[in-house]
């Protein structure tokens, strides 16, 4: 045993928390660090931005329509003279919120189905057939039908914005959990046969604690990857829905709707398409990098290498 490892042992004994180790490893992943910096920056910007940039996104100044970037309008204005920067800030709030909540919903669903199907043999058949069923459904037509059917009821119940938000999050959530479920099930199936699970059984660990203590931490990597891809997917699906005109109301900006509205003016003002597009792609990219770094940092076998 070398001095270096002994010194490290001494440090370990001092009760160093595992999260400090995770952070140490995360820091070594430059892409993840950059991605996290950017994501925090974007989040803060869309949360606090509208207070600092005090032009309301819906303020119409028809005399300043179709302007290019200037000091007064850093991202230019649209055909009604609305400030694009203010709209991107306001749209980011919705897009990010939709992305994160829809991802959380699909992740919880996917992990639940995957773990139950993998761990309990009896549930495997029914749950996996259900997953196949959902996978076989054509996504976009389904989304359109659901939205057509439930939009008005939800709008009436929760108000136009909250109603459509709930609907979109729900719709994206229940149509994107299948990949996670399949990956998690596969991992659980192989984990279940490992000797440490048998060891836990010989100790008398009941199933629910077995899942929480031994199974879930070990399927964290695929869940993590699914989560980051999920945020990206949710933002893009929401954009697609808004782009098709089936998302939020037309006066309610999201990144997808901004993109949709701008396409008509692409030949006139090409930069109007670029801003929301850039926001979507950079956010998605940064989230993917964060996921990559987190996955490495959470695996003790990779940590410290």
């Amino acid at each position, binding site marked *: 045993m070398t001095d270096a490892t*002994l010194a490290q*042992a*001494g440090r*370990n*004994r001092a*009760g*160093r928390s*595992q999260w400090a180790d995770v952070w140490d490893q995360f820091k070594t992943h430059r892409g993840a660090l950059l991605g996290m910096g950017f994501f925090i920056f974007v989040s803060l910007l869309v949360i606090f931005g509208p207070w600092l940039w005090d032009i309301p996104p819906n303020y119409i100044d028809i005399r300043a329509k179709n302007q290019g970037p200037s000091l007064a309008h850093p991202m230019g204005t649209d055909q009604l003279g609305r400030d694009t920067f203010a709209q991107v800030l306001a749209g980011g709030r919705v897009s990010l919120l939709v992305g994160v909540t829809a991802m959380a919903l699909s992740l919880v669903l996917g992990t639940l189905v995957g773990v139950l199907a993998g761990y309990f043999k009896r549930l495997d058949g029914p749950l996996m057939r259900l997953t196949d069923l959902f996978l076989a459904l054509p996504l976009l037509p389904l989304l359109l039908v659901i939205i057509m059917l439930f939009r008005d009821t939800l709008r009436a119940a929760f108000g136009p914005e909250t109603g459509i938000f709930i609907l979109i999050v729900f719709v994206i959530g229940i149509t994107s959990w299948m990949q996670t479920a399949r990956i998690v099930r596969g991992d659980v199936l192989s984990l279940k046969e*490992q*000797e*440490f699970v*048998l*060891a*836990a*059984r*010989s*100790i*008398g*660990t*009941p199933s629910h*604690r077995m899942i929480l*203590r*031994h199974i879930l*931490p*070990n399927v*964290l990597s695929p869940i993590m990857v699914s989560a980051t891809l999920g945020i990206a997917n949710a933002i893009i699906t929401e954009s697609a829905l808004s782009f098709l005109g089936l998302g939020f109301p037309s006066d309610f900006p999201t990144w997808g709707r901004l993109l949709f509205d701008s396409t008509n003016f692409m030949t006139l003002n090409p930069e109007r398409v670029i801003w929301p597009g850039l926001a979507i792609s950079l956010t998605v990219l940064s989230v993917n990098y964060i996921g990559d770094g987190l996955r490495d940092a959470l*695996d*003790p*076998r990779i940590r410290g290498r």
Partner: protein
Amino acid sequence: MFDAGPTRKPLVEVRGLKMHFPIMAGVLRRRIGAVKAVDGVSFDILEGETLGLVGESGCGKSTCGRAILRLYDITEGTIRINGHDIARASHAELRKLRPTMQMVFQDPQASLNPRMTVAKIIAEPLDEHTTLTRREKMQRVHELMDAVGLSRDFANRFPHEFSGGQRQRIGIARALALNPKFIVCDEPIAALDVSIQAQVVNLLEDLQDQFGLTYLFISHDLSMVRHIADRVAVMYLGKVVELAPREALYSAPLHPYTQALLSAVPEPDPSVRSTTERIILQGDVPSPANPPEGCNFSTRCPRVMEICRRQEPEFREAAAGHFVACHLCTPQSETTAGATAATAVPKSVQQGE
């Protein structure tokens, strides 16, 4: 030699244990047969003794060990540990009984959760079965780490940072956490270097003296079993073919399979080596899904008789404490087996120390 007398009571009693795994096939997953991994095994383990369970790969040793702890739902038979019926206990009852029986696994890498620290791994049994405070648990973990010879500094490390021998010590510490009476050691040394094997076996022996443990020591290493076990059971194709005190078994094996197995043990003394005859068995172990009729060993036995292919031999006591399942040793075939048994028994007494 036969110190396992009637004064000591059996801690573990296994009677007619059968563990059959169903084979499913076809579109409808119909049951078309069963792998008879353990097919009618009976033995006792006395309190404080070590029973060695030997046999070649795939003969059902590990399955037997796991079935005794009810890690599988057994097909048939009874298991009593410390007077409690394990075979038919419900899950809730079984959970209460778990602290008395623990297991040390073969692969120290696979038997430790890679995402838990050593302290958490060792404390898991404590979390499940005790209501100690965090500080008391840590105290106990440190005691256990001392007992198995691990530095307390390693408590916050992860399993992948250790060598194989150290990992096995972690596994042993986990098994000891609840002060069990009975530990199944499922080939605890098979995955270790030879130099580490001795350390781990000595550790197991020291712990046995210290805590009065009873072991079922599963291994295919005959010399290691000779070192650690008080009595030895030999398994072949899901059945115990011979069960005897250590010295009796090693000096005068009665079953042809045991004789063949022992003749394969390397002999360090060249003068002895030249005199011993190496019995080489022909063929392969038959499939446990389709065992041969009569004696399981009849397909490979060098001394097979006509009766062996028809009738299954009874597992009976051939000499004091020496059980064997072979037609060569039954009274009906006195003519052929008499000589073997008669010479074998006194020799074993002479050589027993």
